[in-house]
């Protein structure tokens, strides 16, 4: 049976690769249609977004600009399963979350959480699959380019404060496990659909139970009324509509934890022995100019972040990585989980250029030229593929 499987897999890899890998090696899906925004995000800025499907919506590269943070109406959307009905926002303060795996487990309302403490964290929210389009083996899933990421401010109570108020984590717990409040249909194994993610207990000091995004109550699309936000980790780990947060000895038994969001080699099925998609790595990309521009002094801009640690420096190249110049950060430093917009001032003669950027984090980790492929196409941070070709006239 295993052989049959692998046979089918490689048969597919062969047929697909020829059709849609362009000369540059960048996979661009031609069939992405220009579709209207679905109802639950109809308030978003359609001009700034690419609708891959009703549950996967990416920000246009031209919409990043040089902002230190991303407005919610431009922020990408990705739901693993359909969101719950909007009526869950009718009485936000009445939303309940149960806290388990602590000395005194109990349920708390959002109103009560708001009395316990408050803090704001600026952080890069990035889909695990951002950059999937740049993998050449055509993984399943949305072919995100750079736009499944934004830098946003979350406001809420530190989970540590809540856990301490409930007597601290119980003995022997190793993970923080958040459970999403999506409505699951009858007749299917709930573990295949349940959005329940576990992250290492070490993250406890960074996690927020958040009710505001950029100073506004969190919309349904982004997990309101309450989201468990895990700074430095990819988006899937920040559980939306969170109904339960537990300190657990084991990782969640849900499919989304056990076999999905794993970094298995190409052609293999994911499982608990493969690394989980958790912390983000150092990454950057160019945000402008994106097309034709005038010769002379050109302001080459982009965004860069370290993931779980500060980004230390960024270099920019106009010749696809043959020579590099150092970029400068612009705007305020919003902390180690945020991104930093950057600029490199370049004097460009008429001609064709390929702009790329390469960031290094405070621990000395530098973006690789290419990311080692993993079957589902997660955690892309190679510097070459997201480059931009421009004409200077």
């Amino acid at each position, binding site marked *: 049976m295993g052989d049959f499987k692998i046979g089918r897999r490689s048969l597919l890899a062969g047929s697909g690769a020829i059709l849609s890998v362009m000369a540059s090696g960048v996979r661009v899906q031609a069939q992405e249609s220009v579709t209207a925004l679905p109802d639950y995000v109809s308030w978003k800025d359609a001009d700034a977004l690419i609708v891959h499907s009703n*549950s996967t919506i990416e920000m246009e590269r031209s919409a990043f600009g040089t902002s230190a943070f991303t407005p919610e109406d431009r922020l990408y959307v990705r739901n693993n399963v*359909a969101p719950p009905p909007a009526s869950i926002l009718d009485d936000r303060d009445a939303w309940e979350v149960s806290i388990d795996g602590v000395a005194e487990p109990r349920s708390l309302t959002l109103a009560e959480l708001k009395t316990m403490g408050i803090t704001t964290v600026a952080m890069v929210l990035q889909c695990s699959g951002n950059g999937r389009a740049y993998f050449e083996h055509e993984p*399943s899933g949305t072919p995100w380019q750079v736009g499944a990421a934004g830098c946003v401010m979350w406001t809420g109570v530190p989970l540590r404060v809540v856990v301490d108020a409930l007597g601290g984590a119980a003995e022997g717990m190793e993970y923080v496990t958040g459970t999403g409040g999506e409505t699951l*249909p009858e007749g299917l194994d709930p573990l*295949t659909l349940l959005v329940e993610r576990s992250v290492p207990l070490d993250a406890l000091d960074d996690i927020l139970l958040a009710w505001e995004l950029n100073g506004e109550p969190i919309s349904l699309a982004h997990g309101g009324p309450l989201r468990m936000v895990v700074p430095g980790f990819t988006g899937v780990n920040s559980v939306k509509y969170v109904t339960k947060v537990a300190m657990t000895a084991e990782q969640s038994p849900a*499919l989304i934890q056990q076999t999905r969001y794993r970094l298995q080699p190409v052609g293999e099925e994911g499982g608990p022995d493969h690394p989980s998609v958790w912390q983000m790595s150092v990454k950057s990309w160019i945000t402008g100019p994106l097309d034709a521009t005038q010769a002379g002094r050109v302001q080459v801009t982009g965004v860069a972040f370290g993931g779980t640690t500060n980004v230390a420096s960024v270099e920019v190249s106009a010749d696809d990585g043959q020579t590099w110049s150092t970029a400068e950060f612009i705007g305020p430093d919003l902390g180690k989980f945020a991104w930093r917009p950057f600029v490199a001032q370049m004097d460009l003669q008429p001609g064709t250029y390929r702009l790329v950027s390469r960031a290094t984090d405070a621990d000395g980790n530098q973006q690789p030229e290419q990311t080692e492929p993993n079957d589902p196409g997660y955690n892309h941070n190679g510097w070459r593929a997201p480059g931009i070709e421009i004409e200077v006239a």
Partner: protein
Amino acid sequence: MGKALFTQGAEPSCSICHTLADAETMGEIGPNLDTMRPDYDRVMRALVNGVGPMTPYDSLTDEELDALSHYVASATKADNVEP
């Protein structure tokens, strides 16, 4: 054959989770296939390897997988309806 597989032949049925106008299904768990417009290869990969909550449809024959992939790509007017 593709449409029948979509609405009832495949187990679990695609219709529980997906909206597809041509098949008159209204599932809301997964992406709306009419807006996604997945091409043949993308449907095939999802069925063979699984994606998200979909586990691989191992019980379908190669012919059924082909029919289903062709059907979904055609019904959503994807750019590539052939392998």
